[in-house]
């Protein structure tokens, strides 16, 4: 069985590749205090995440539960202003039930900014001390959950980086990992092919419904589906455009359809439906790439494979992001922000299988503790906004 070195063993059975203490603001009004706690607690001791809204949102609570009980998370400090609607008691209870330490500070009850920062630093020191005592346990490739997204795409994404990630996904799935691809809105036209790849006919029908939902949602938002620039770049049909993004999924059968925060119950390939259910209520499904990354982490992703043509520089809190650059010209300009140069495929210096293997080797190394490039540079982007979802149906998941 292929090795990773060792993972951090959590009380709930999870195996993490990182050991993060999270400082979480539960409304924008607590953001400054939480940020100062992180800054004054010293580099590498804690990470900042949060939810800006004052109004309640079940989705945000579910995502926060997923993030705070993620295998890479060792403990959390919740920073509340006091009057916001976020259900901090329920979040704290969930974290506690997972066996992780959690502390809560309410600014209105703790003497305001300065005193809350002071107490917050003490809390982080305690949480870090506990985190550092976390036991290690052997961890295999089959224990990994890996997500993929594309951002800052151009005409090269679909012919170098994306198919190479697909090859890496095939190998990961073969070795027992759970792999997640997403953005049903960019898979319009691929639903019939995905249906044929589904492990059951019922799952196939669910996949088709999820893409139809995405098409309707984007129609309401006024999205154009195929731009003149696409044709200039060599794309002829809508399904061809979608297949560029779709090729990240590789060739494995599709084992399940999940929604943000649902944890894949087994290894295999999973499609994440990121389009909210019901009427269009809160605007665009995901307002930027990090919103998609956060959702995959909330579904257990230990690390993220991010393909980019024009050149994104982002990383993420909680889980490392490995960046795969599709365009050799972009790589020449932004090489210090990239982990893998998939543009070599276009230059004839490597084939798709070779770059797929190189991505796999990066997954292995980063999961074994080596920082990814964005991690090394200190990128810890995070964004969480309003959404609403219905629970997935029973036919969406494989039986364990």
């Amino acid at each position, binding site marked *: 069985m292929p090795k990773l070195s060792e993972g951090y063993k959590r009380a709930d059975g999870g195996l993490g590749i990182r050991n993060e203490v999270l400082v979480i603001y539960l409304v924008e009004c607590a953001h400054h205090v939480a940020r100062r706690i992180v800054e004054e607690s010293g580099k590498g001791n804690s990470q900042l995440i949060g939810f800006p809204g004052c109004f309640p949102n079940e989705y945000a609570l579910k995502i926060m539960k997923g993030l705070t009980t993620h295998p890479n998370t060792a403990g959390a400090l919740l920073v509340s202003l006091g009057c916001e609607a976020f259900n901090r008691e329920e979040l704290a209870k969930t974290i506690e039930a997972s066996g992780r330490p959690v502390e809560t500070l309410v600014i209105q009850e703790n003497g305001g900014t300065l005193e809350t920062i002071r107490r917050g630093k003490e809390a982080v020191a305690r949480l870090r001390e506990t985190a550092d005592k976390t036991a290690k346990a052997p961890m295999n490739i089959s224990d990994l959950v890996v997500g993929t997204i594309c951002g800052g795409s151009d005409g090269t994404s679909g012919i170098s980086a994306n*198919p190479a990630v697909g090859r890496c996904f095939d190998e990961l799935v073969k070795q027992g990992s759970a792999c997640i691809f997403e953005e049903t809105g960019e898979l*319009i036209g691929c639903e019939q092919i995905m249906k044929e790849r589904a492990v059951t006919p019922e799952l196939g029908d669910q996949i088709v419904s999820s893409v139809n939902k995405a098409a309707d949602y984007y129609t309401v938002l006024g999205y154009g589906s195929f731009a003149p620039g696409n044709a200039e770049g060599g794309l002829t*049909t809508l399904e061809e455009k979608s297949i560029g993004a779709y090729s990240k999924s590789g060739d494995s059968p599709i084992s399940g359809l999940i929604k943000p925060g649902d944890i894949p119950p087994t290894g295999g390939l999973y499609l994440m439906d990121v389009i909210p259910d019901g009427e269009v209520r809160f605007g665009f499904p995901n307002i930027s790439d990090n919103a998609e990354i956060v959702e995959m982490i909330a579904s257990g992703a230990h690390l993220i494979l991010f393909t980019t043509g024009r050149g994104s520089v982002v990383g993420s809190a909680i889980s490392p992001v490995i960046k795969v650059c599709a365009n050799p010209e972009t790589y020449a300009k932004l090489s210090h922000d990239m982990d893998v140069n998939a543009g070599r*495929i276009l230059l004839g210096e490597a084939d*798709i299988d070779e770059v797929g293997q190189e991505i796999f080797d990066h997954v292995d190394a980063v999961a074994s503790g080596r920082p990814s490039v964005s991690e090394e540079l200190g990128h810890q982007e995070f964004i969480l906004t309003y959404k609403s979802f219905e629970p997935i149906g029973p036919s969406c998941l494989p039986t364990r």
Partner: protein
Amino acid sequence: MSAKSKFILLHPKDNVFVCTTFCKSGEKVSISGNDIILDKDITVGHKVAGSTLAAGEKVFKCGAPIGSMIEAVNCGDHVHMHNLKSDYLASHLRTATGEQDA
């Protein structure tokens, strides 16, 4: 894969190659072992036929169908809007945008 090839086969199932380096009209390239003289400029991302393709034949890229040929082409011919059409009929899209079903 030839180190100098300017075209790539993305998936073994594919019947089109994708251009990875700009090619000028009149340039001699090798597609599926055939020497082809290009009759037009081909820019990065554009497709050429990997073999003779019949009218109505499904075109595969990345192992997935991207449409059907509306006319026959020879190996090495440019495959694009003029000879390839979408097979995708998204009735929900046409309904949603108020267009008539064909």
